[in-house]
């Protein structure tokens, strides 16, 4: 918690300087665990449906109303090429800011808040092209592999004719 407060008060740099660590929100899709830096997360809410958007790619789940603004929802499973999620009330939308936009990501569940050291972040191994495209790096935590999501990559290419 202390690290979090520091970050809030003094900005990211001081937190890095203090601990050289970062906090992640970890969430799961099937067996896989992914994470995003906690500072980008705005809100976590239960899946409650979305209005589908026509003429967009399969992984664009639609749009929801977030306190009066319209926010697009991206289906992370579909984004990784594993077909669309069949969401239930137990599925979760993680709302994050990407640049000046807010987007939601549909995941199976939020599992944890992790503190990891930046030094422990490794490059994504070559091979799986979707992973290299969508991940910033990989970090091991309690013998679990956590993929760090590159949000900009996830939200790009949403239009059908791209």
């Amino acid at each position, binding site marked *: 918690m202390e690290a979090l407060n520091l970050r809030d008060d003094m900005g990211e740099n001081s937190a890095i300087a203090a601990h050289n660590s970062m906090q992640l929100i970890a969430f799961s899709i099937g067996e896989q665990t992914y994470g995003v830096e906690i500072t980008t997360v705005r809100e976590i809410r239960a899946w409650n*449906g*979305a*209005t*589908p*958007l*026509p*003429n*967009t790619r399969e992984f664009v789940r*639609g*749009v*929801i*109303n977030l306190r*009066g*603004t*319209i*926010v*697009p929802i991206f289906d992370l499973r579909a984004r990784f090429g594993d077909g669309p999620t069949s969401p239930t009330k137990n599925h979760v939308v993680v709302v994050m800011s990407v640049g000046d*936009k*807010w*987007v939601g990501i549909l995941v199976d569940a939020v599992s944890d808040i992790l503190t990891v050291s930046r030094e422990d972040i490794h490059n994504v191994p070559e091979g799986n092209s979707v992973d290299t495209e969508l991940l910033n790096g990989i970090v091991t935590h309690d013998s679990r592999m956590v993929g760090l999501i590159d949000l900009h990559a996830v939200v790009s290419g*949403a*239009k059908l004719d791209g």
Partner: protein
Amino acid sequence: MSDLDDFKATYFDECSELLNELEEQFAAIEAGERDSDRLNAVFRAIHSIKGGAGAFGFSALVGFAHAYETLLDYVRDGRVELTDDVCALCIRANDIIADHVKAAQSGDVLDADYGMEEKERFDALARGEAADDDETGGESIEEFDIDFTPVMVNLDAVEEVAEAPAAEDAFDTAPLQPETGHWEVTFTPHRALFERANDPLLLFRELALLGQMHTRAVLGEIPPLANFEPFAVYCTWEISIVSPTVTEAAIREVFEFVEGDCDITVTQVGAPAAAAPVAKAAPAAAADDGLDLLALADDEVGVPAAPAAKAAAPKADAAAQDKFEEAPGLSFSELAETMAPPPKPVAPPRAKPAAIAPAAAPAAEGEDHGTRAVGVQSIRVDLDKVDRVVNMVGELVITQSMLTQQMDETLRARYTELVRGLEVLAQTTRGLQDSVMAIRAQPVKSVFSRMPRLVRELATKTGKKIKLETIGENTEIDKTVIEQLSDPLTHMIRNSADHGIEQPDVRLGRGKSETGTIRLSAEQAGGNILIIVEDDGGGINRERVLQVARDKGVIPPDTNPTDEQIDQLIFAPGFSTAAEVSDLSGRGVGMDVVLSNIKKIGGSVHVRSSTGKGTRMTLRLPLTLAVLDVMLVKVGDSPYVVPLSSIVETIQVSRASFERVPSGGQVLQVRGEYVQVIDLAKRFDMKSQTDQDSRFVVLCEAEGSQKVALIVDDIIGQQQVVIKSLEENFERVEGIAGGTILGDGNVALIVDVQGLKTQLIHKNAA
């Protein structure tokens, strides 16, 4: 420095208002209204632009504005006649000023000789007329310019001009002797000095800053009390200042404001004869004011002599009317009325051209009951704050209409009070909405006023004769709409001037007047604003448009569109009769930009042309962007809304008559008209689970009276919605004009009827 940037921002805002005002004034002046009010307003506008420009050191702008202002001054007082030529020159000058302002704003540097030609014409005009005056009147505007050097901070210039020249020049020839910095000043204030609220005490205080000061009041000529005149000044001060550095100029500067209102001598003690004092006093004034002298005290007084001086210029105190010590403060107003005009300095300062004097008099007399409304109070509010209110009011309107919808017949019958309350709420909400929208509304004038210049430039470049008429410029539209209007309007007018209006000889050959007319008008029609650009040119060359459209694949080669459809093609993406891409009409950008800009703000464009007679382009714009009347429908399982303004009627599919066309598609037959059909579920790739016959046809009409039949799965009802942007967090989606949030919190998408139609043309073309 951010303060300076703020000031600059204020200045450029102000300039754009003033430039608009200039356009307006000259439109009236051109139309023959050449009264002094208008000329004064023009003069003030240029004067204000110049004043601010001086503060920021925009010297090119200042130079030009100053020359122009001088000409205007001559015109104003009749020395230069406001002929049509002069008027045209002024209009040209306004454009040059606008360019200078623009350059100053963007940091560009204009050619050094830009506007020089016009400046020389000002000069010639001024010289020509002024030649009748006495010789100093012939001073040219160029010479003025040399005197007027704009500098951000120019203290020296101020001092120089303010100095009394003759004495100073004489003195400056004698080298200063710092060791002998001992000066004697005699100072006799006149009555006028006090009447202008100057105060010897303050002068002494300032003098004391220059060096060691000693003052002595000379009280020789105080009359007996019976003869004592309360407003006369009976006192002279002798002041000595000792300082190694003080100069006569510095001493005289202290008395800058009271020059002419006092007798003053400044003498350097022990200085060579060359420095003999030159009295700058005004003998006439002395005769008027300095006859009697008041004996206040006869001791030597130092700086504290000031209280005596202060008594001569007290704050008004009505109660003290009878007390003679304080009397001088009393009825200056009466006195001012009975008094002779204030004394003038005997020697007019060097730079003063005699020709200015006649100009000055009318200016002083001229009461200027200008155009500005007195007492209209206003505040400046951040637009964000207004928008927040607009949004909340929008939500309120929707909540209110939702509540009203919830009242079914049973509830209505049971709770009559509640129903009445809801009706009042509905009315109040509507009123609130209108009032809030009015805050954002602005007259289209601010955009219209940019067009005369455009037309002038276009006329010059094309060699055509074009007259612009504007109508309804006080029509008000939402500020955002206005901001988005400038580019499309510019394009449309360029198009009219470039392709519509013919060359003068062609026009004459067709039996038209040599000068073409472009008419720009704005009017409110229901919930919309119509902006119409109309010209009396040759009309759209349909053969050519069709040919180009086919060549460019905008439409398939075998289609035979109607005349109206051909006209509309000029807005199609990719269409540009670029065979003659002049730098006027396009820079390769076609009219499709107009359409996309207008669509962005929820409007539509329609063009109607009559061969040989002209073209009329109509922009239909929403009054407000915030709230939209819509029909809520279902496509698949999703809620969609269709703007009510584009709906003609709704028909059950079972009752509609469709016909197959050879290409395999379907058309709808309505009252003998064949209409293209778009199944929204198919178009939006949704699964429709509704039985075909219980679906609905929503017959829509956008601009151009071209209809389209949308098939939806269900019709839910009408309501008002607040438009939300999809692009704020996502991006533009084909066929969707935006989103909105329904009463149940879900998002519904707004169908972009015009966009679907455009897509249709595309698809056919592909």
